[in-house]
């Protein structure tokens, strides 16, 4: 039997597309297999009601990697493709807090807080930058290091010690493992400001502001700011995927959609290709999985081909999503008290203070959704009329906490109640909101799992916690994009450095595969 393709990529999420493109550019024959009817995965634009569409899962771009954009010649920086946005944290008294890259503004903020914000962002962006050598490289092994591992560690050490300087490094080591709650209390006075910043540390995670590790998650989010400004893609996140798809096709990647991989063929410890659900066998020298680790190892490779403890570790990855996605079709633009039309196009969040966020998280610990969920809202149709009928609008909301394992299960009644809760929270700020809603779509983490083929419906294919990061991502025994199966690699958010529309795992995986030289 001949090997018709040298590389098969399982899953056409943005990382799969990016990895495929790099490998194709390097001269390899790459075939990409996507189970859904279009590529993009979580970076998609989907129609949820007749005439209304919006970003299907991810709706804010905050760190598509600059090197990836350059290498793949993605023309994504101009105003025709993205709209840069600030974050506006809504307050009941109408004194909304606007958080920019360097500056924050609100009437109630003291001059001390205004200055502290600037200093805080500079300092923490510095920490995020110091992690750059770790982010853009294969995470170094700590045992049996090769030259590259040592170099990466040396670069990291250099960038922490000399990039940051003595004082900053000491501070970085102090705050690195603690929680954002304590750090923000040290730095700021305004509860509103602290609440707003804490959202970036917990959104997408099963963590509250008081959870240790939330400084690290905040830094990972902030790292995006070192790459590109926070923005909303015109035409929805699917536009980004369309550009990546074009780059892949131009590079010679053969893309097949609507084909679900059923099994990864393993013979004598080496992957030989895949078997599709149709029974078709696709042979390849190299198999790269954009799917999460659980799907890749437990479902596609199968426990009988792997060591028992390795399977146990993969199965134990904490990967239960906690964010629901809601899409509202609106007959008119909602009126938020104190927000101008221009401001409506920004990233709006509801997290009035850190106690609110922590209390929202408390419910999720016990398998309940939040009484008062934390919301991240965008109304992309303000700057993009293609998403809704003329004069109408769409609102895209990420609502946390909505646990994957809801105690009573995501029955219709729970779903209705949750939508009701979210609507009520929005109406505190936009009193007439519900009267303009003509259609609603709710994607719970269970729906996200089903529709996007992500185990647990977790944004990041696994919590971005220290024990699931770097050389331990997704689990030790499969770091460095390699797996226990020779010729099988991971290129998705399961791998270092994790999720978000960054393209970094895809980029790093491709570099690793090329460096391994076994194509």
């Amino acid at each position, binding site marked *: 039997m001949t090997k018709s393709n040298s590389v098969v990529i399982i899953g056409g999420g943005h990382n799969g597309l990016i990895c495929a493109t790099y490998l194709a550019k390097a001269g390899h024959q790459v075939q990409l297999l996507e189970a859904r009817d279009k590529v993009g995965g979580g970076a998609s634009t989907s129609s949820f009601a007749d005439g209304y569409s919006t970003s299907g899962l991810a709706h804010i771009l905050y760190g598509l990697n600059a090197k990836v954009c350059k290498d793949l010649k993605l023309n994504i920086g101009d105003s025709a493709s993205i709209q840069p946005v600030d974050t506006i944290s809504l307050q009941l008294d109408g004194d909304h807090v606007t958080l920019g890259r360097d500056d924050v503004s609100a009437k109630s903020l003291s001059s001390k807080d205004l200055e502290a914000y600037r200093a805080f962002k500079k300092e923490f962006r510095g920490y995020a930058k110091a992690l750059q050598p770790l982010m853009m490289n294969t995470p170094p092994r700590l045992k049996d290091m090769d030259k590259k591992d040592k170099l990466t560690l040396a670069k990291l050490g250099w960038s922490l010690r000399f990039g940051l300087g003595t004082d900053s490094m000491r501070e970085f080591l102090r705050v690195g493992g603690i929680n954002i709650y304590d750090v923000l209390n040290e730095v700021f006075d305004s509860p509103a400001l602290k609440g707003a910043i804490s959202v970036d540390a917990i959104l997408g995670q099963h963590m509250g502001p008081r959870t240790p590790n939330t400084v690290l998650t905040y830094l990972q989010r902030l790292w995006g700011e070192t790459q590109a400004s926070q923005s909303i893609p015109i035409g929805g996140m699917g536009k980004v995927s369309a550009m990546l798809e074009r780059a892949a096709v131009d590079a010679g990647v053969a893309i097949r959609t609507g084909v679900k991989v059923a099994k990864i063929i393993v013979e004598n*410890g080496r992957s030989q290709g895949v078997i599709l659900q149709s029974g078709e066998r696709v042979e390849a020298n190299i198999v790269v999985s954009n799917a999460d680790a659980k799907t890749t190892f437990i479902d596609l490779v199968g*426990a*009988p081909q792997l*060591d*028992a*403890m*390795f399977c146990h570790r993969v*199965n134990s990855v904490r990967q239960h999503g906690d964010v629901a996605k809601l899409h509202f079709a609106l007959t008119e633009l909602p009126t938020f008290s104190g927000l101008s039309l221009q401001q409506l196009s920004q990233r709006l969040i509801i997290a009035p203070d850190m106690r609110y966020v922590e209390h929202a998280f408390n419910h999720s610990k016990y398998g309940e959704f939040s009484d008062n969920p934390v919301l991240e809202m965008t109304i992309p149709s303000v700057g993009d009329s293609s998403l809704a009928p003329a004069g109408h609008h769409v609102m895209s909301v990420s609502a946390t906490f909505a646990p994957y394992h809801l105690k009573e299960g995501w029955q219709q009644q729970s779903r209705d109640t949750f939508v009701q809760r979210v609507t009520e929270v929005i109406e505190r700020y936009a009193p007439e909101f519900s009267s303009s809603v003509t259609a609603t779509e709710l994607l719970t983490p269970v729906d996200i799992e089903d529709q996007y083929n992500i185990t647990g419906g977790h944004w990041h294919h696994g919590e971005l916690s220290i024990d699931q990061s770097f050389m331990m991502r997704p689990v030790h025994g499969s770091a460095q994009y390699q797996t226990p199966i020779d010729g099988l690699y991971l290129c998705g958010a399961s791998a270092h450095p994790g999720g978000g529309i960054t393209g970094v795992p895809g980029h790093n995986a491709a570099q690793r595969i090329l460096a391994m030289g076994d194509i």
Partner: protein
Amino acid sequence: MLTQTDSHVTTDFREVLQPSPFQARINEQCLVQDWMSWNGYKTARVFDTLASEYFAVRSTCSVMDLTPMEKYRITGPDAQIFLNRLVTRDISTLKPQRVTYVIWCNDEGKVLDDGTIFHLSEGDYRLCSQHHQLDWLLISSLGFDVNIEQETHAIAALAIQGPTSCAVLTAAGIDGVDQLRPFDIGYRTLNGIDVMVSRTGFTGDLGYEVWADPDHALAVWDAIFLVKEQGLFDIRPIGLGALDMVRIEAGFIMPGDDFNTAETAVRADRDRSPYELGLAWLVNFKKPYFTGKKALLAESKKPTVRRLVRLSVEGNKSPTDAFLYDAKGGSRIGTIKSCVWSPILKMNVSLADVEFVKGKLPEQIWAEIYYQKELEWRATWAKCDVSAKPFWIHPRSSLTPPNRF
């Protein structure tokens, strides 16, 4: 699904060690009250004298309570492929009513425990192990449609070992014991009680294990000892002391005594692979993937670093815990793990952990032995020899049918 059958677990908090279903008879016969814990059971180390118990195994017939041995029932559609992924040996060829000796490893190819797999009937297996393995079995069961039940307390078992063991069981009323080949399982009756008889043991001698419902335990015991009362054969209950002597003679290793199991080893070099235990013959790379295969494949290509060997030690001084050297006063190369003065062979035999030199056994091995004479310590050197074969495996242990007595 996990179920645990605890029919014999006592509810009395003052009963620290739990009784075996044979306890009533064991208590009567254990004259020296030398008790120890075996997997939480009150177990006799010695019943009357060690020598008489030892010679019961080698010359007549011994009876030992096997109930405390960890036992797991493995059933379900994937029972066979689950076990084959667990152990290093290919058990897909293990036919119903047959038994095989196995070891299993962790991901790093280090031995977790050893034991036996009984293929009770098509697709129905019992795994017996030295140590508690339920958590590892459950971890290993991810991705397999298999049912694992701990049945340690649900099965009463006796080991009947020694040259006259077949004759004793026959005289006790079990038919067709003589037809069982080594590692066979037979379903029989004893005075109307259903018993399972397997030709298995840990002694290197002719012997059987009899398995029954705990409710019938005393009846089985009594039926066997009735043969002694009839004056036909000498039959003695034996404790773990005598068992330890005969198993060292037979070269059977004891996880936890002869090597640290991978689960209990703390220091990086204290766990052992099958190669390091001299059990390479149990590792089969031709079968489907099993836990530790990748690590063992890599290790198999490297020179041997150390190995557990059977070592005879000159002289009559006990080499207990002795250090081993590559010459008298030379470099230290290992230690004695288990040793015994073999009454039947009239020599010191042992199992020893020995470091290899450039992948080879050292040319000479010497033990430095410390011993006492009337409370005064002395030291001496004894030359050691590695034995390729077990010191004692009697031809009668594999003869079918066994000789009649």
